[in-house]
């Protein structure tokens, strides 16, 4: 007696057939999945190390945090934070431009309608995954070790980490390009470079700009914290304030980060509605 719905047709099967949303295999897999999730949660809850002594005074510490931050030390803004803010914006912008430059060839390599070699496609895809898997803060640690602390390390960290994201979406946009114009150009005997510039570029340009804009928005957020590991910008100012325990200055940096992120979001939303 089964109720799987896989019964032979005929009167007996017809009588027993019952509608089921999932096949038995699916149900077993889902049940197994739920059990697995439950085990993972219980394991994590039981073994995670939490130091209870720290928790007793958490409310006081939280209150203390805000008391120390208030009033915010606005006088610190012209001295240090303004320059750091400008540096953060440069880091994000330059990093995004560099990322687009680096990602474009990789995206062309990944796009199956441009590069007709499975091996090259996969090599490109590997580059995209590898750059994306390592977080920009880790790239920053690496570039600080190589080029020394400063905005340069931040720019390179942002650029390299963004290759994965930018290249992935760019290659998808290229793959969606209509083959008609490309074939027309090839039929006139146009060289590959001309097909690229006059056939593919006009088709992917809006997507290209939108991707760059979207990434810039993300990069402003990320470059604001790169300074914590030596990447320059607002994070550096935050790090200085925190290691001096000047919470009123740290509060100022946090407010500036909040403001710049909100402004960036508004700017990109406005630009997106104008371009697309």
């Amino acid at each position, binding site marked *: 007696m089964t109720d799987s719905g896989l019964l032979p047709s005929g009167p007996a099967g017809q009588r027993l057939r019952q509608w089921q949303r999932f096949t038995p295999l699916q149900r077993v897999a889902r049940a197994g*999945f739920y059990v697995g999730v439950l085990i*993972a949660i219980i394991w994590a809850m039981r*073994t*995670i190390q*939490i130091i209870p002594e720290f928790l007793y005074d958490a409310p006081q*510490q939280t209150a203390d945090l805000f008391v120390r931050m208030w009033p915010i030390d606005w006088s610190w803004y012209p001295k240090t934070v303004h320059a750091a803010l400008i540096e953060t914006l440069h880091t994000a912008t330059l990093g995004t*431009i560099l990322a687009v430059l680096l990602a474009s060839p990789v995206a062309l390599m990944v796009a199956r309608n441009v590069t007709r070699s499975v091996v090259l496609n996969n090599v490109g895809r590997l580059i995209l995954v590898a750059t994306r*898997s390592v977080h920009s803060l*880790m790239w920053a640690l690496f570039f600080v070790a190589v080029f020394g602390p400063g905005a340069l390390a931040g720019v390179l960290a942002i650029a390299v980490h963004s290759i994965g994201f930018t290249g992935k979406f760019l290659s998808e946009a290229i793959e969606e390009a209509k083959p008609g114009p490309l074939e027309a150009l090839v039929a006139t005997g146009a060289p590959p470079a001309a097909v690229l510039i006059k056939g593919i570029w006009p088709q992917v340009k809006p997507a290209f700009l939108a991707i760059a804009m979207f990434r810039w928005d993300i990069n402003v957020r990320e470059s604001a914290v790169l300074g914590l590991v030596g990447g*320059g910008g607002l994070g550096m100012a935050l790090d200085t304030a925190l290691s001096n325990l000047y919470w009123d200055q740290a509060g100022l940096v946090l407010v500036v980060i909040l403001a710049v992120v909100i402004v960036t979001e508004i700017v990109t939303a406005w630009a997106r509605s104008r371009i697309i």
Partner: protein
Amino acid sequence: MSQAGPVQPRVAFPPNWTSRIVTVAICAYVVYAAQIVDFTWARFLTGLDQGRRFVARMFPPDFSADKLDLLYGGLVESMQIAILATVFGTLISLPLGIAAARNLAPAPIAWAARGAIALFRTLHPIVIAILFVKAVGFGALAGTLALTVASVGFVSKLVAEAVEEMSMAQVEAVRATGASFASVIVMGVFPQVMPRFIGFTAYELDSNLRNSALVGIVGGGGIGAPLFTAFQRFDYDFVLTIVLAIIAIVMVGEVVSGWMRRLFQ
């Protein structure tokens, strides 16, 4: 045999002056900004040399027993942080996302929820982690709380969008039977948003696995602390071990979240 006549020859590709000016402007900016961040050819060459030495010191990766213990402890803690932050974050996101959906929640509640989500989304997880380290002390709890807040910001926005895009017909059908608000949510809304919600959860697990390697840099527990220390002590061979382990974990996480998505599609 052309039809003749004084027809103006048509330019196939007329010059696009806006795009040329923009290109020139971007080039000018790059030159200017490169100067600001002190990017010179000499520095690049020194960096290349330095980079070569750096990479040389990374090999072979350090697999000695005491380092592996450190690595194992950090990775386990990172995974615990990621799992708990994903569970709590997505569980909070579901009601918050529904509260932020303008087709279900009354306008004042929706706007309040949207404001909260925007605030959570704006701050980078690392910055949130700094605040939680001060509030609850060093350790995994601070990291978990920070990533939970970051997950709430990300997932509840997507949940709100999913709820706003769903079909209201089913919701109205359930309402017409006289069902309570809770029943409307459970019978009319959940079945429609569940597949996408699972997708967001899978994505968030991925992203929390990546971020849990970072919160340690500011004292939030996990593998980030050993990584940062190894960098500062120039133990680059151990750095490579940690980075390889993180990449492996992230890839395993990607496979698991891929299963999860396929299972619930």
